[in-house]
């Protein structure tokens, strides 16, 4: 009896798990499932691809290079001079309505916002409004942490210092009458950046928080004076600043500059007519063969104009179908040996 008890004590549990006999679904990737599956996926993808492609085609986009490399370019003089706030203007004509909502982007090429050192050169605590980081910015901001007189720079770091400072105004000339197109600068940055991630210190007036600090070397105005027209658009929660602070992933990038205010004449977008963009030319890009652009674009549900997604869907979808045909041929010709 004792022996039996000890036996059963040592006996392994006879459960489905311990015996590796759990009930299981045992699918096999055989031609029988894969071929019809591929056809279905392929057809679905082709459908999506066509839809995306058509949508993308319907998006209108205007892109103008105003860097001024060539002498015909309206900004060539500004490009060669080193004068600040050099003015130049760029004209274009719309023959039809540019369907709204219209977005106004500036674009930079050959510009590496994704440099590691560049990207690290900021102080998130400072930008969160923590005053202790105003007086002693993070060392990651170096060499833009202190100016030559050892005063802390706020906001510190390369990103802030290199903030894009060309400005644009847009006028519409129709029937000899020139209208200023009103541009909306609200909501061009992420809502979370504006409301949560970046904060001004809790000091009123804001200027006092910046006592004992200096503005970034390349800046014309200190951070608390970025937008004279709107006091809530100053400091670290300035929309242009926030847009700039979100580093682009690739060296050719666009950033949202303004939105065409959809009101009055511009309710449906930019109507046909002659337009002039007045540019305050500051930002130097020729040294590194950079290109500056302005872009007007409308968007669909799938964003801006991008044919890639549609084409990719079409390609993958047709590949699926082709592959299923190939597999069918192979399958029919060689079959499974066990079916003979």
């Amino acid at each position, binding site marked *: 009896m004792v022996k039996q008890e000890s036996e059963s004590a040592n*006996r392994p549990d006879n459960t489905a798990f311990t015996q590796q006999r759990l009930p299981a679904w045992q699918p096999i990737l055989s031609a029988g499932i894969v071929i019809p599956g591929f056809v279905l996926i392929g057809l679905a993808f082709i459908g999506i691809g066509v839809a995306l492609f058509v949508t993308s085609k319907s998006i209108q986009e205007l892109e103008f290079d105003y860097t001024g490399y060539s002498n015909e370019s309206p900004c060539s003089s500004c490009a060669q001079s080193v004068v600040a706030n050099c003015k130049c203007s760029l004209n274009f004509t719309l023959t039809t309505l540019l369907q709204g909502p219209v977005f106004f982007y500036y674009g930079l090429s050959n510009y590496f916002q994704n440099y590691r050192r560049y990207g690290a050169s900021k102080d998130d605590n400072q930008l969160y409004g923590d005053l202790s980081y105003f007086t002693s910015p993070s060392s990651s901001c170096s060499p833009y942490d202190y100016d030559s007189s050892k005063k802390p720079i706020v906001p510190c770091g390369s990103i802030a210092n290199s903030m894009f400072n060309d400005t644009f105004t847009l006028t519409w000339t129709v029937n000899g009458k020139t209208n200023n197109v009103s541009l909306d600068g609200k909501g061009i940055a992420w809502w979370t950046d504006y409301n949560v991630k970046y904060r001004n210190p809790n000091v009123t007036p804001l200027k006092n928080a910046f006592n004992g600090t200096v503005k970034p070397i390349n800046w014309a105005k200190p951070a608390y004076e970025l937008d004279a027209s709107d006091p809530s658009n100053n400091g670290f929660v300035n929309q242009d600043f926030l847009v700039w602070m979100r580093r682009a992933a690739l060296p050719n990038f666009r950033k949202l500059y303004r939105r065409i205010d959809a009101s009055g004449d511009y309710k449906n977008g930019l109507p046909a007519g002659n337009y002039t963009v007045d540019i305050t030319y500051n930002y130097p890009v020729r040294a590194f063969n950079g290109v500056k652009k302005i872009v007007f674009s409308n*968007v669909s549900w799938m964003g801006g104009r991008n044919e890639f997604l549609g084409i990719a869907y079409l390609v993958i979808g047709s590949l699926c179908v082709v592959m299923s045909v190939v597999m069918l041929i192979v399958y029919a010709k060689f079959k499974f040996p*066990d079916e003979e």
Partner: protein
Amino acid sequence: MDSEREGPLILVECHLCVGEENWVDSRTIYIGHKEPPPGTEAFIQQRFPDNRIVSSKYTFWNFIPKNMFEQFRRVANFYFLIIFLVQLIIDTPTSPVTSGLPLFFVITVTAIKQGYEDWLRHKADNAVNQCSVHVVHHGKVVRKQSRKLRVGDVVLVKEDETFPCDLILLSSSRDDGTCFVTTASLDGESSHKTYYAVQETKAYNTEKEVDTIHATIECEQPQPDLYKFVGRINIYMTNEPVARPLGSENLLLRGATLKNTEYIYAVVIYTGMETKMALNYQSKSQKRSAVEKSMNAYLVVYLCILISKALINTALKYVWQSDPNKDEPFYNQKTEVERQRHLIRAFTDFLAFMVLFNYIIPVSMYVTVEMQKFLGSYFIMWDDEMFDEELGERAVVNTSDLNEELGQVEYVFTDKTGTLTENNMEFIECCVDGHVYVPHAICNGQVMPGAAGMDMIDSSPGPAAREHEELFFRALCLCHTVQVKEEDTVDGIKHGIHQGKSTSFYISSSPDEVALVEGMKRLGFTYLRLKDGQMEILNREDEVEKFELLDVLTFDSVRRRMSVIVRATGEVYLFCKGADSSIFPRVISGKVDQVRARVEQNAVEGLRTLCVAYRSLSPEQYEEVFQLLNRAKLALQDRDKQLAEAYDLIEKDLILLGATAVEDRLQEKAADTIESLHKAGIKVWVLTGDKMETAAATCYASKLFHRNTQILELTTKRTEEQSLHDVLFELSRTVLRQHGGMTRDTFSELSGDCTDYGLIIDGATLSAVMRPGQEGSNSGNYKEKFLEICRNCSAVLCCRMAPLQKAQIVKLIKASEEHPITLAIGDGANDVSMILEAHVGIGIMGKEGRQAVRNSDYAIPKFKHLKKMLLVHGHYYYIRISELVQYFFYKNVCFIFPQFLYQFFCGFSQQPLYDTAYLTLYNISFTSLPILLYSLIEQHINMDILKKDPCLYRDIAKNSLLRWPTFIYWTVLGVYDAIVMFFGAYFLFDNTTFTSNGQMFGNWTFGTLVFTVLVFTVTFKLALDTHYWTWINHFVIWGSLIFFVVFSLLWGGIIWPFLNYQRMYYVFMQMLSSGPAWLSIILLITASLLPDVVKKVIWRTLWPTTTERIQGQLSEFTPLASLHAPSKGSSHRRGSENQRNPRRSEPFTKKVMFTRWQKAPDYCTFTPLLRFADSSRHSRQGYNYSGAGPETSV
């Protein structure tokens, strides 16, 4: 510690000192720690180790440093340590946490696991070291812990106790100073051997007397050879000191067991790790599996890829920086420090790239592999089919490092006694003048009535035959050296015979003899005892017959027979039994042909056969014989030779009586297991210490040799006739002629169309083959030739092997050019060295102690469990771990290659593509559990099919799933996926927005998009490879994807106060809020998986493996596999139905054993048998089967 010191020898009185010239080094032992008398030369007392056995690796104190050291000796761990240190020192793109945390995790888990395993070893050691021993101390017996024994202690060992260390026998409870010992756990011979005490000390057999012995022992320092010992005892008790030689017949070895002797006194000479048993252990070196070797090779490749990636990027970075405007545009000025030190910058840049890409070496692969092995090994322990009800034991896993190696075995080296066989002889039948007698088995506890349990087969014998029959049974009852031991207590292992009043046992040095005497008892003739020179037999009529035992002509392996001369009622008979080959030539009458036919048939059946003959001696003849024997016995010189000559003269003119057949019963399903292993493409070698005939019989029975196997012999007998050189070349010519032009198709090999070769080699010849450097290059040639012969033999039997020779064989095969994976399986201490030597060592929980089990990597209760171990568990583990390894490299290529590509678009600035959290957690949590689970429970095919179809094992032979093409395929697939993911995201981000509110995304969104596609792709890839979807798989695979999403939402959803950056804030949510991001994720996942699916389907159709073929045969949509979860009972039943020959391998079947001639269909195929017999006669290579003779003690 005392090398080169010649022991001071007293040579004056030494008459018979043997082998003096062999003494290189000696030790002196004072018996009972008594100093020798002052007059003698001074001995320098040496220090000896205590009797502690240490198999553990660590102590409490050195665990942490030693374990750390060993862990960091692993290339991968060392690499991660370096990366971690680099991250601490230089300015790197990622924080030290990203590699420090996983490293810490890996090191801790491994240390815990190894610590636990070592703790188990400590426990086992302690159990041995602390068991108590009786020591004589000042005339009293005291108990002492085994580990406290010192050299020079006198110990008392009682019957059935195991010797705690190597001892010299001083005296025993027997008057003649002998004792019986079984060395079963040392060399596998279960017979009882006799050991002798020195004449001068044998009378001192109480503790008081023993304490008065005053003597010293000089002996050689310990050496591993079990059978060699040279020493001398100096006794100072008489006026004149006496010296006596000591040899191996005086030496009791640790691990052997005292039998049939009440007690002995003996003195300790070798202790602890110096005992011969311990010296026969090889150091327990870390075994590494083939998979681990492939893993390391891949690692090196990836390391090269990593370094070249870092080099390329560093170089390109400097090309890039050569343009100062690119190097330092106005928006990204450098600090003063950065502008200086250009050379050092280059190096730190290189290191930074290394750190950035270091994740390509799968950081958590090692820990996942460790966990997989550790947890996975539980399935072996849990396996109910590997549980043995008889023993109440289940499989044990000692090292989980080798699970997958079980799926790679090419050679199985198995011990015979106790492994293939039960180590339990059973009388099967006897044949008198061609009439076959089969004893009835006990049916339902009752002896079957009628003819006293005898079954006549042929026509009932006539009167002459009747007389022969009577003589035959008496011959078997008398012609043996069996002792009868009466005992009240029941010992399960011994062959008990119930006689109502008390239990008595037959004890013999040869289990065959016991079986025969017991068989006789079942046939009605009971041998009672030997008393005052009278052998008493209880015959069928319950009358006691007495025979006077006149002489015993003992067994020896040259004659292969033994005889007794007895006198009964005035008549003198010589009864002789022996191997057929040694009996038949000496027979002058009797029904030789019938008996021979029967013997040969039994031999083919794998039974151990003996022939019995007699000769009636007239008084004159007996007188002559008596004189002959006496003369020989008294000879001082060449006594053995003279005895042999005398025996030769006496054992002649015999009259044949009949033959017997005894079976060392094979373990249950042993033959089935060996057949399965053969079908699985595994070569099975039997290595045994047993003698050739016995071993060969077992090989036939276990289907290792088939009836049409042609046996090649490479034994001492042959090499005596021809030189080793000639034999080897002749054999290789024979083998190669057959196999030369022919490609050995795996299936025709089994069909028996071609001649199978089986090789038999013995220990002496083997050592001649292996002997190094006699004729320089020539000896290497022998080895080559030998290997060549072996490779062409389907089965090899090595007999008369010493433990270390077994290991040598294994080593030889291991080192041969194909480097096959070897597995050694055995149950005794004599198998330990080969168990340790082989890639995988398996211990059988046999009757011979636990040493094999303790030193093995896996232990199973029975040999039959090896089948499931290899064919099912081994196969699964291999499939699982190879997928694990490949998948790990694949997913890390997918992971890191986009980061490499990104460098081309960020000015080679080491900008990480992914966030730190993703970098750290990718391997630890997002993608770790599904593959771990896969590697634990994947079953690509049903286990019943694996068992039924051993050929499937060939599919994975030679590490087939981890070969370079497969590895390259996975890597290329990884690179392809990486390119798809990266450029997919790249073109999506190219100069446009993909939100409907016109806002732009930044670099972290880019990385997150790639990362999301990555996590889903690698998880789906695994899902596509999973063939066994239990609810756990669903849970883990979908669960880990959900975990990734939830984590990302959380990680980006909160401003984390402890972080000094918030770059991921809302990135994931913003991304998900955009339709094109969803679409592109779906697109990129599909595009990444597409080629792999297509490849799989096309390969499966064009070049299906056997496994895939069988998978295809099963219905494509097996809804639930619950149908193959039968109850245990039914699977057992199926098992026994599968057996070809149930009689051979079933344990005590309860049904009556009828004669085999009734089962005509099994035995009507005599043609191959005859061919075998013919060929064996025609060619000298042929193996003449000879029945096993009785074994006699040393």
